[in-house]
């Protein structure tokens, strides 16, 4: 109770509430505007969160995250274009409801579903993350090494079409994380060290600037391909009867529960994300509808069931993805990878230590997550007639602003050090170009982020483990937890290969 009150005191102040409200509105806008993503939004506000107290900063990031995941349903319902891949399944029934003159109910329903998904998965987060974190008490350097390995391999195997490309990008992220000083000897590991030893290069690759480059700059460059394409006209849609009847919502309780479970579990598996969860939830909803003897409407006919299932699931992913992120330091998706980066910048290492030494912050994170979900619902309902107008803003105006914010953001991380700030902006451009090339050629970029985050953890624990075993490299095969993780890593490599062969 003391921790809860301490956490509450960190959150319940004007500054945190105001920043979270702003973050929520910004998130909804980012989610609603096609081409801008939740991860990009978090990466862009990260430099701002860095300047704020920890709980306020995390609250701001979570508000953007929840807002962006939910906001994507607005263009999906009104225009039939998902704001980002999270709302890809909402399009099917959402747009048909709009065509039937039920846009208000679809939008209102999406908000209620998002709120149920977000808060439901938060309850799972509160219940499971301390338990998982406690289990990590038994983890020594060898277990941590294999945990980092399994996190990397899973995200590499599921984040793109090609397993090898995913693994390659993970390795690429890891070697970038090695630039700088050797964690044990302090020796410089940068090219041309004799010339660059007095420059910011010695600090290695700044994580925030890399994330801003990968998700902000690269997205701007990538979206330029759509700049001269005619924009989908935003029709004037009459929005009335915002809330669907309670009786209708109650009749969908099985769909809600199954989507909540799917979203939370899928979110907790590293590398999967909302775009997978939404289709799984639709599939499950279809089975429930078939077994309902006509009590529920058929999917694809413009029904509320088709909006509720994906919207509960994609918001449940937010809480689910935070379970491994907070408990193990392994992000569930690229957005939580950025959140972990934000925690690390603040000097907070996720895992059992966080739960043991900083429990009030953990509670503050849970409370901010709850407030973020409330704000998301509140501001989406309040602005339901305004957001469609914002969809008219052309990308040509937005992209230069995003680019400038990316540069200033990476500069600001350095605080008062001008040369470090300029170096950070250079990293943002470099990673932006890398991200652009990768996106264009079908290389997934989330494994790079994981590599950047887990690279150092992997190397440090690997060396510690081998040292403790007096140079025995087989120490990883002598511990049961390590063997379990290695087995998981092998499975996540072998399974997609077998699946592909079967499909052929």
């Amino acid at each position: 109770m003391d921790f809860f009150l301490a956490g509450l005191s960190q959150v319940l102040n004007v500054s945190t509430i105001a920043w979270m409200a702003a973050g929520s509105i910004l998130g909804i806008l980012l989610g609603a505007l096609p081409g801008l993503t939740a991860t990009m939004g978090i990466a862009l506000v990260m430099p701002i969160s860095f300047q704020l107290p920890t709980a306020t900063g995390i609250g701001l990031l979570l508000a953007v995250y929840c807002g962006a995941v939910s906001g994507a349903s607005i263009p999906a319902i009104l225009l039939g274009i998902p704001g980002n891949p999270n709302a890809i399944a909402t399009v099917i029934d959402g747009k048909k409801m709009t065509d039937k003159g039920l846009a208000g109910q679809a939008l209102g329903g999406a908000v209620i579903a998002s709120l149920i998904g977000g808060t439901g998965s938060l309850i799972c987060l509160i219940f499971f993350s301390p338990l998982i974190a406690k289990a990590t008490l038994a983890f020594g350097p060898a277990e941590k090494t294999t945990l980092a390995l399994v996190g990397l391999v899973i995200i590499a195997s599921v984040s793109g079409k090609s397993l090898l490309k995913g693994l390659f990008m993970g390795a690429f992220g890891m070697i970038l994380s090695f630039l700088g000083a050797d964690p044990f000897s302090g020796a410089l590991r940068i090219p041309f060290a004799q010339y660059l030893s007095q420059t910011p290069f010695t600090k290695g690759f700044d994580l925030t600037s890399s994330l801003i480059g990968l998700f902000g700059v690269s997205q701007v460059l990538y979206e330029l391909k759509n700049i001269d394409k005619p924009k989908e006209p935003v029709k004037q849609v009459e929005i009335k009867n915002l809330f669907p009847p309670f009786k209708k919502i109650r009749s969908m309780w099985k769909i809600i529960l199954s989507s909540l479970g799917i979203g939370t579990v899928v979110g907790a598996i590293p590398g999967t994300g909302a775009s997978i969860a939404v289709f799984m939830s639709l599939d499950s909803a279809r089975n429930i509808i078939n077994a309902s003897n006509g009590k529920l409407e058929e999917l694809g006919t413009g029904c509320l069931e088709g909006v509720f299932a994906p919207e509960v699931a994609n918001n449940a992913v937010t809480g689910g993805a935070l379970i491994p992120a907070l408990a193990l330091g392994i992000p569930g998706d690229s957005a939580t990878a950025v959140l972990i980066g934000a925690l690390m910048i603040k000097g907070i290492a996720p895992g059992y230590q966080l739960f043991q030494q900083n429990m009030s912050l953990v509670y503050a994170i849970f409370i901010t997550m709850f407030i973020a979900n409330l704000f998301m619902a509140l501001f989406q309902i309040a602005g339901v007639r305004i957001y469609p107008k914002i969809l008219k803003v052309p990308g040509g105006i937005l992209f230069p602003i995003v680019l400038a914010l990316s540069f200033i953001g990476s500069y600001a991380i350095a605080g008062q050090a001008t040369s470090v700030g300029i170096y950070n902006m250079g990293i943002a451009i470099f990673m932006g170009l890398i991200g652009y090339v990768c996106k264009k050629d079908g290389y997934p970029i989330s494994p790079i982020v994981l590599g950047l985050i887990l690279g150092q953890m992997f190397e440090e624990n690997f060396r510690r483990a081998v040292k403790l075993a007096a140079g025995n490299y087989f120490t990883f095969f002598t511990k049961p937890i390590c063997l379990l993780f290695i087995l998981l890593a092998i499975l996540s490599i072998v399974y997609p290969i077998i699946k592909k062969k079967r499909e052929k």
Partner: protein
Amino acid sequence: MFKTRKITPFAFCVFSLVYIFYVVQLGDSRMLGDSIGGDPGGRIIPLVLGIFMFISSFYIWLTDKKVKDENVENKLNTVEKHLLILTIVLSLLYVSTARIFGFILSTSLLIYILTFANLTLGLQKSNLKAFFSGAIISEIILIAVYTAGRKLTRFLLINGRKQLIPAWLGSSVATLLLTILLVSVLFFIFNILINKIFKNKNLFTQVKMSGAISVLTTEFLYLMFKQFFLVELIKGIIYW
């Protein structure tokens, strides 16, 4: 060879090879105080990763061949290519010249040029006159707005501290809000003036839009990071 195979995996292949040589020439670094031994050293993981990257990128290069008409929607037309190159070049210029020109000038120019180019789908010769006049006017407005905002901020902060004005007026939040108010009023006045001076509506909308976006965004970012978060932004030419 490159007609049928993609260039990206080849570039990654070369990069991996260079990385392996770099790791080898870097030498090994051991844990401090590792007299008993057992530390595998700082070279092993980078080396293993480098070799893995080389083999995998080589394999991808061999197998991932170009397919005719593949990714048609990913292919850029002339306008898009032009805008992509312009964005990359301007970004590089922004970073390399930020120290000389300072945050205010370089950020507003970056935003102005890119917004104008995006709205007119490339910087065409016929638009250059409007483009340059718009750039000059928006820079003048920005400097005027910035200077007025700066003077007001200093006045409030200094006099607030000396208690010549009510202390709350000198607080950082009140200063920020009053500066935003002043900047908005000034911007509004300039907007009316420009609308009266320039009557030609043809290209005027894009110029005005680009100018307004650049002035407002730059001023907003300045107020947010410099005044609110106290980040030391580069002053450059505009040293006051």
